[in-house]
């Protein structure tokens, strides 16, 4: 049988990012997840982010990204001419002399700082190579953004995004969210319109994802929150542990309400943010 429509059906759908791959592929073309791996979902519904095999290559535009190392993985990008990526400059590891650097103009004069440094989004433009990593053990989470997606990410967790992604940030609303949310005042938002893009996050420890149905909710330690679809709402609430004369003891948890994906990290670090 050499029916071309039958051949089209022989595709491996990536369980992590849903991209269709060639039948003989061993790693997903757009997110690097191994395709021969069993679909790992815990009984409670969390899917573990795929541990990307060393030296896996991921494609976007005319550029490639190679993920190297498994303790503190490095994302090394070979930018095609005219392709560009954006990032916070503290994640830079090394680059070629010739890779052009510029700064993304951000709207609004909101004062945002990271570790005492002003918040600047840098842009590297090809041709040329540039590599990124973070300061601690963790996992590189590859999130290919299909057209028309909107993703909210914990601030300072994103490593690098490709130029087809629109970047903006939100001020987190509500005093309780800011004071007890454990993640500062801002959340990064990544939006794709007509084109798809590639977004790399760095999660501390291991990263897990689950998809919430409409109206379904789950309580998450605020410091563990890593990313969510913008359709998921997040509200930090106090969960009473004891009741007492002076109000008792309570802990703060983030209530995430579906529909959409929620990603968490297993080792949470509270950055000092201003």
């Amino acid at each position, binding site marked *: 049988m050499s029916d071309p429509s039958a051949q089209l059906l022989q595709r491996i759908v990536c369980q992590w990012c849903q991209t269709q791959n060639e039948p003989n592929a061993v790693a997903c073309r757009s997110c690097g997840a191994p395709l021969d791996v069993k679909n790992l979902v815990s009984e409670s519904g969390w899917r573990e982010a795929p541990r990307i095999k*060393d*030296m896996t290559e991921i494609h976007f535009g005319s550029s*490639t990204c*190679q993920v*190297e*190392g*498994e*303790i*503190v*993985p*490095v994302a*090394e990008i*070979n930018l095609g001419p005219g392709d560009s990526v954006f990032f916070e*400059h*503290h994640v*830079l*590891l*090394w*680059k*070629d*002399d010739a890779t*052009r*650097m*510029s*700064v*993304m*103009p951000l709207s609004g004069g909101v004062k945002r700082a990271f*570790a005492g*440094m*002003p918040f*600047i989004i*840098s*842009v590297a433009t090809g041709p040329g*190579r540039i*590599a990124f*990593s*973070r*300061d*601690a*053990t963790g996992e590189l989470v590859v999130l290919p953004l299909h057209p028309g997606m909107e993703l909210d990410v914990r601030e300072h967790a994103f490593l690098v995004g490709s130029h087809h992604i629109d970047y903006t940030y939100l001020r987190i609303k509500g005093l309780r969210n800011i004071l007890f949310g454990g993640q500062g005042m801002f959340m990064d938002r990544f939006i794709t319109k007509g084109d798809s893009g590639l977004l790399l996050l760095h999660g501390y420890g291991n990263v897990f994802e689950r998809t919430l149905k409409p109206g379904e909710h789950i309580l998450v330690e605020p410091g563990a929150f890593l990313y969510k679809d913008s359709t998921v709402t997040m509200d930090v609430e106090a969960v009473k542990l004891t009741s007492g004369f002076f109000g008792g003891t309570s802990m703060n948890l983030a209530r995430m309400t579906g529909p959409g994906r929620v990603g968490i990290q297993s080792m949470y670090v509270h950055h000092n943010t201003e």
Partner: protein
Amino acid sequence: MSQEPLRVYDCNWCGQPSDGTALSCPACGAQVDVRAIVSKSGWSELPGRKDMAKLQFGQSFCQVEGTYVPVADMSLAAGDRIYFSHHVLLWMDSQVKVSAMSMKGAWKRMIAGMPLIMTQAEGPGHIAFSRDAPGELVALPIQPGQAVDVREHLFLVATSSVAYDWIQSGVWFTTKSGDETETHYPLGMFLDRFTSPQVPGLLLLHAAGNVFVRQLEPGQTILVKPTAFLFKDPTVHMHLHFERPAGTWRSWRSWGDRYIWLRLKGPGRVAVQSAFEPVEDNGRNITSHSGGTERQW
């Protein structure tokens, strides 16, 4: 009967010849017969050392155990000696003789980077070392006449034949605010220099995260985050490189509109670690700096 060939396999990590019959290189523990892992940009990842790889030095052995926070587990033969700083000691047999290191000989006592007191252990017996962070254990065999310059504070343990010296890193810049001048050393003030004058020695470093090494051709350059620098051959020159991005506006004074790089120039080997401290830069005007280059995009 013809003689067995003396060298059939050159280790792709340390370059040492061996007969290729072992699972791992007897000099540095790298896997033998593994596909050499080189990223397309030319960095080799520290070879996937098999758990429990065994290294030989003198009559003693070192087994590297674990892949997350690796342990160097030494089986010291009688009379073989190693030295280390005491905070990396994990466990030891009671018959291992431990003493404060004699300051005579090749070992120079100094106030620089490394602790003032080194501890020496003498076989026979087992003794094991580890550090307090996830990372890689880097084995660097040092041949007589060879030298390696290492970022300070990464030293784990070395055989007694390895001589330790230090050199000024020579990489600094000063910033000024009002009357206050601050000097920054993005590599630290000193580099550790290890040599092994008489016999081959073994040096073990602990690096944070993953380790990548590459060979620079004469005149070839690469820009590296200063705090990610791990080690280099003494033939590799380094200096500061300031890069200013296009499209910036000068109001972000506290950022300084600059990336501070370490520019490495071949020929020779360079290595980086993938986890790093942030580069200390208060963004103020740089009033003076060690030799450097600049690029405005």
